[in-house]
């Protein structure tokens, strides 16, 4: 029986996708997991992979077409096998109509109209369109065809909450087996060690602060803290690394800022939190988002566990993520889940700006350019390379003094950059 290929929900918020390019032609042999097409989502260009093996029997939408999530885009089956008559309105293209008129496919169509198969198709569609929000996204891949998994793998997946459609099976015909789940990082909602955050119910004072401030200046009551950081030593550090380590090992100012912010968040967990309407989620893990300009907007790739990474690891990872961000090749999990963000416009010679908070995060640090300006050192006016940073704070989560203490730690670390080299 042929397997329907549908537009899958490739990002959490995706409602429709544009089929940029078919990677397989009709008649091509398909192995499970092969890339069938590239799909542009609301966030990125992603790959639509085959959920069944065989032959690509039909492309029911042409390249360039935009179709809703879970709509049919093609069929995979055995070579020569007919495919059910089309039911989706979006499918109508001249090309496929012609195919329908060939005797063989016609016959298949007739068979399909004799009740059962047709009915099944309809039920299928109703299922998909009736659901709303997230349920649709999750249901869609499952409806493409049954995921092959051994009984013990299914049981393990059910117990640990792993979505089997996201696991690549290493058994025969792509069957998901036990070892595939043993090697998949399992996302437990609550393991023995507990979740990587603490939810704190809102106290009355926090509730009142939240209510009053929202009335005052909009849904996220933001305030701004600005400080100027002396970057002389940080600049020296960069030059020392450059002079001694040669080409290939570079430390950028941005890497230093990411590292300083991560370490400061360890000391000030109150700033590493999400506003969750009825509670505040204080994260035990530090994931730093890094705004990257792309052609038609911006995206914030996330450096996970940034506090546990060395300066050089942060440097390599941010470079790699930014590169793929510009190519729009980030996976959803690579640009979601930050606990704090940084926006750096220093390279555009912006002295000072304020950044907009990316909810549910509670803070973002706007980083300006580094320029020599007159400063007073030991009673004398001397030129110093200085950098102005401004932290935007969600007042429902972070109070003025809390943010100020965090920012002074960032400043202290950047002004004494040797501390950033410690593992």
């Amino acid at each position, binding site marked *: 029986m042929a397997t329907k290929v549908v537009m899958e929900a490739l990002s959490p918020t995706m409602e429709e996708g544009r089929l940029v390019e078919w990677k397989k032609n009709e008649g091509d042999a398909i192995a499970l997991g092969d890339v069938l097409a590239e799909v542009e989502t609301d966030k990125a260009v992603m790959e639509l992979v085959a959920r069944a093996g065989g032959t690509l029997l039909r492309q029911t939408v042409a390249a360039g077409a935009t179709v809703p999530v879970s709509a049919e885009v093609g069929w995979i089956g055995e070579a020569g096998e007919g495919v059910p008559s089309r039911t989706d309105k979006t499918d109508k293209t001249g090309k496929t109509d012609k195919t329908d008129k060939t005797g063989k496919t016609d016959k298949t169509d007739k068979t399909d109209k004799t009740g059962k198969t047709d009915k099944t198709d309809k039920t299928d569609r109703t299922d998909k369109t009736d659901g709303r929000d997230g349920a649709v996204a999750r249901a869609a891949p499952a409806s493409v065809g049954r995921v092959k998994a*051994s*009984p*013990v*793998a*299914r*049981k393990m997946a059910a117990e640990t909450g792993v979505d089997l459609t996201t696991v690549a099976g*290493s*058994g*025969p015909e792509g069957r998901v*087996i*036990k070892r595939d789940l043993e090697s998949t990082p399992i996302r437990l909602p609550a393991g023995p060690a507990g979740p990587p955050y603490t939810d704190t119910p809102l106290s009355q004072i926090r509730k009142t602060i939240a209510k009053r401030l929202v009335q005052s200046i909009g849904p996220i009551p933001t305030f701004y803290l600005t400080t100027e950081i002396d970057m002389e030593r940080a600049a020296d550090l960069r030059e020392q690394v450059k002079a001694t380590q040669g080409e290939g090992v570079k430390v950028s100012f941005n890497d230093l800022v990411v590292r300083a912010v991560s370490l400061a968040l360890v000391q000030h967990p109150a700033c590493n939190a999400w506003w969750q309407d009825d509670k505040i989620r204080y994260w035990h893990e530090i994931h730093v988002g890094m705004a990257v300009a792309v052609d038609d907007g911006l995206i914030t790739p996330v450096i996970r566990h940034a506090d546990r990474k060395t300066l050089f690891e942060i440097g390599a990872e941010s470079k790699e993520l930014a590169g793929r961000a510009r190519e729009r090749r980030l996976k959803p999990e690579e640009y979601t889940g930050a606990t704090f963000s940084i926006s750096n416009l220093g390279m555009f010679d912006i002295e000072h700006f304020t950044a907009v908070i990316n909810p549910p995060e509670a803070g973002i640090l706007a980083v300006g350019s580094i320029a020599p300006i007159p400063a007073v050192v030991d009673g004398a006016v001397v030129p110093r390379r200085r950098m102005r940073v401004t932290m935007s704070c969600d007042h429902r989560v972070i109070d003025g003094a809390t943010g100020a203490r965090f920012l002074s730690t960032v400043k202290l670390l950047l002004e004494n950059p040797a501390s950033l080299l410690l593992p």
Partner: protein
Amino acid sequence: MATLTYRDALNQALREEMARDSSVFLMGEEVAEYDGAYKVSRGLLKEFGPKRVVDTPIAELGFTGIGIGAAMVGLRPVIEMMTWNFALLAIDQIINSAAKMRYMSGGQVGVPIVFRGPGGAALQLGAQHSQAFESFYAHVPGLKVVTPATPADAKGLLKSAIRDDNPVVFIEGEMLYNQKGEVPDGEHLTPLGKADVKRPGKDVTIVCHSKTVGPALKAAEQLAAEGVDAEVIDLRTIRPLDTDALLESVAKTNRCVVAEEGWPFAGVGAQVVDLIQREGFDLLDAPILRVTGADVPMPYNKHLERAAKVDAAKIQDAAKKVLYR
């Protein structure tokens, strides 16, 4: 603990049980004067006399019926079949009388009897004398079916079979009689219905019994050299089947191969597979594979005979298949 052959372990069990209980007697072709066709009853005539060690004519249906009658009136006969191939002549008595008497008398008359003798193929005995019948008898409610693989189990299981109040079909391995092993002295009873882990392992379960235990252990050794830790489960009793032991093992390994000497269709392995998929569906990571004798009358030609039999290489191959290696 002494090192005995499988043959002598059986002899010891018979001797001990006959000495312990005067209602136990042995009857069959050549069991007395000739000391048994396979010398299992060696010395018993001399020790217990002609009333308790009885030679019979070549008439399986007759002496099996006499044995069942004796059991019905209170004795504990051990009926020796020269081989289980010849017991086909007696199968009406075993199935229609022994297996059903307790049920059809409403529990008034039990048949505490043991039918014992060698089963399965030896070497080039031809199609009619090379058959494994355990699945035939295991099919029948009212019978217990026991298939020892080692000298210690041969002794322990035969003693338990003689003491059991139900008819027990006790199938020895013709090729196992000379096998040696340590056998506990005296009161060594191996319970019926309990499988035995002959080799612990964690990667794949190999279920076997009787003559396939040896090849299974050899396959496990060869698998170990390839980094696969196989567990070998000897069923020992085919009916009642040890459900718990099978499920415990598969819970650990998630993979299973069942080896048996008999033919594939409706074989012992089919029952094991049924049990595991039904009771242990969520334990499985791969389909269960069976390794059986070829689905043909046993060839006489020695090369064809070898090809038709289960061996370690076939078990090893099946284990690798269920491991997807």
